[in-house]
């Protein structure tokens, strides 16, 4: 039996905010019966633009129900900008942890939230913030896993095998037809890694680290952001903690902080040092 925390069991046994809001401002639906888990998340905003009500319906195991329930509690009272920054790690933290094999339950919560926010912007006829609307083809049709999710997992955990990708994302765990596609993404990552070998720096000499961070931000990170109309500048380096500020389009984008922060950190870790921590400064 899984070692669920008391908080997971509490949210499973006493789920909060079960149901569907007929007058919802945004609805997100992810997963399917074939996947083994699915979540419909709906929310309604109050006059100040804060989430007044959130409801969930979940098909899935105890931890999927608990992740959904705790997410609705986290959402209530937040603006959409604040809500968009909730990551799956935040959901896991709020639950006091999840078994490793159950991480995808929290990912489903994050994905439903993203889908619900995108739905809100579409209903309003507003432009969807760029970070929420990536062109993202589905690679694994059995478990409906997108290319973005797979690329992210490969880079984040430096994956090399299809079964590693399955373990982290579920992709490829079904019929196996997408294994060639996953191999292609793995190969692209491996090629990119070979083309940009990690820069060796003397970690003892902080000045060298600082200089390398500045160079890598300018040469490797900023160009990618500029492609989407964004940019980044280095604010400070304290030990292995790199403080940056987002500028350009990214500064205006409500959802960019968490997404871009994770991405920059991952790039710097690949290129420089595993223990690098990236902090995005508050927007001015």
């Amino acid at each position: 039996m899984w070692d669920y925390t008391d908080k997971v069991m509490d949210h499973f046994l006493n789920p909060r905010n079960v149901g569907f809001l007929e007058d919802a401002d945004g609805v997100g639906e992810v997963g399917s019966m074939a996947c083994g888990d699915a979540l419909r998340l709906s929310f309604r905003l109050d006059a100040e633009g804060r989430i007044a009500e959130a409801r969930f319906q979940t098909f899935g195991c105890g931890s999927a129900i608990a992740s959904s329930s705790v997410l609705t509690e986290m959402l209530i009272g937040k603006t959409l900008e604040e809500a968009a920054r909730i990551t799956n790690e935040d959901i896991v933290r709020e639950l006091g942890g999840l078994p490793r094999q159950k991480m995808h339950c929290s990912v489903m919560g994050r994905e439903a939230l993203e889908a619900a926010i995108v739905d809100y912007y579409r209903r309003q006829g507003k432009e969807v913030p760029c970070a929420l609307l990536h062109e993202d083809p589905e690679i694994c049709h059995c478990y409906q896993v997108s290319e973005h999710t797979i690329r992210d997992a490969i880079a984040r955990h430096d994956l090399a095998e299809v079964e590693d990708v399955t373990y982290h994302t579920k992709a490829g765990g079904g019929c196996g037809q997408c294994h060639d596609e996953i191999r292609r993404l793995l190969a692209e990552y491996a090629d990119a890694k070979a083309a940009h070998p990690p820069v060796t720096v003397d970690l003892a000499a902080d000045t060298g680290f600082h200089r390398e961070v500045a160079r890598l931000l300018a040469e490797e990170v900023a160009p990618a952001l500029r492609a989407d109309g964004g940019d980044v500048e280095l604010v400070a380096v304290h030990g292995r903690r790199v403080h940056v500020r987002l500028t350009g389009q990214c500064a205006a984008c409500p959802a960019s902080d968490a997404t871009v922060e994770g991405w920059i950190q991952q790039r710097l870790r690949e290129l420089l040092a595993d223990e690098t921590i990236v902090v995005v400064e508050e927007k001015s």
Partner: protein
Amino acid sequence: MSGLLDGLPPRPDGAVYLDNNATTRVAPEIVEAIQPYLTDVYGNPSSIHRFGAAAGRAVEEARDQVAALLGADPAEIVFTSGGSESDNLAIVGTLRAHPDKRHIVTTAVEHPAVLSLCRELESRQGYAVTYLPVDGEGHLDLDALRDALRPDTAIVSIMTANNETGVLFPVAEIGRIVREAGVVFHTDAVQAVGKLPLDVNELPVDLLSLSGHKLHACKGVGALYVRRGTRLRPLIAGGHQERGRRAGTENVPGIVSLGMACRLAAQEMETEQTQVRALRDRLEEAILAAVPDCRVNGDRERRLPNTTNISFDYIEGEGILLLLDRAGIAASSGSACTSGSLEPSHVLRAMGVPFIAAHGSVRFSLSRYTTPAEIDYTAAVVPRIVERLRAITPFDKEHATF
């Protein structure tokens, strides 16, 4: 929404254990009977002195008891560490004895002890393996078995009873087909021994696996029946124990427990077929009557008397098990989430059970210790739990997808 466990009926004393296909309680008389072998009778059966002789006598008496349950000769019983080792010894031991034969026939619904081994032999050692499919009821097509046999087939390994659904394969008929073709036939009878009368004088099997802890003996002990004349190479090299077929100092208390469990099983066989079957049917019928959109997986006729596997559409098995556990009821599920794998039960998928039903499958497996009060309590709890979880799920009959 109120708590998922609010308003359940009062529960009987103690927990309700309905997971006997996973493992069973050790029979109280066995617990008592093995005490001397954990204390005074600690000799090594191979030793010449009185300590060894006493232990050796106990092992041989147990061998007689296991043989008696199966109608076998005691010399045909090899003690092992359990069902998995028995299966591995049967298959690998046969392959090693027939190095020129490179083909194995098994089924898509075997226990992992057989299935994973066959996949391993296929992928790493170049064996060809035929996995026979099953139909929606869980049955084999015997013509497919006939067609699968080849001149280089070394062994056919087909279970007697399925651990998940309880569905029985026609082992006697299968054995006739296999042995007519001159191929060694192994059956994993781990779930069947003690629940069904099995007599090797009538069953044309060469090798038969059984496991102690599935019939109220201790964990860590099992046996392989090896028909006289069957060529088999040992897996474990070492001493001369078990006539050179399985090295290692005997697990004396475990073996004594297995012997006694076999003796008790012979006495209780009628109970399994009458009392246990009646309680299983009572539980099954009560659930089917009270819960909409649920069904029994597998043929309800040709089935173990103690097992029922029921799918509850639109909900997931792990949630059901967690709530049952909170209500004091132990069962198991073929859902993906309970195992940590992504796919639901390979047995249910092989039977073509759709995902909506496979994820929400629950297995209740009874024993001769199960009481009518426990069954009635479970029958009252299950519909409420299913109803609570269905109130959370986004899916129902009209909306099976988003």
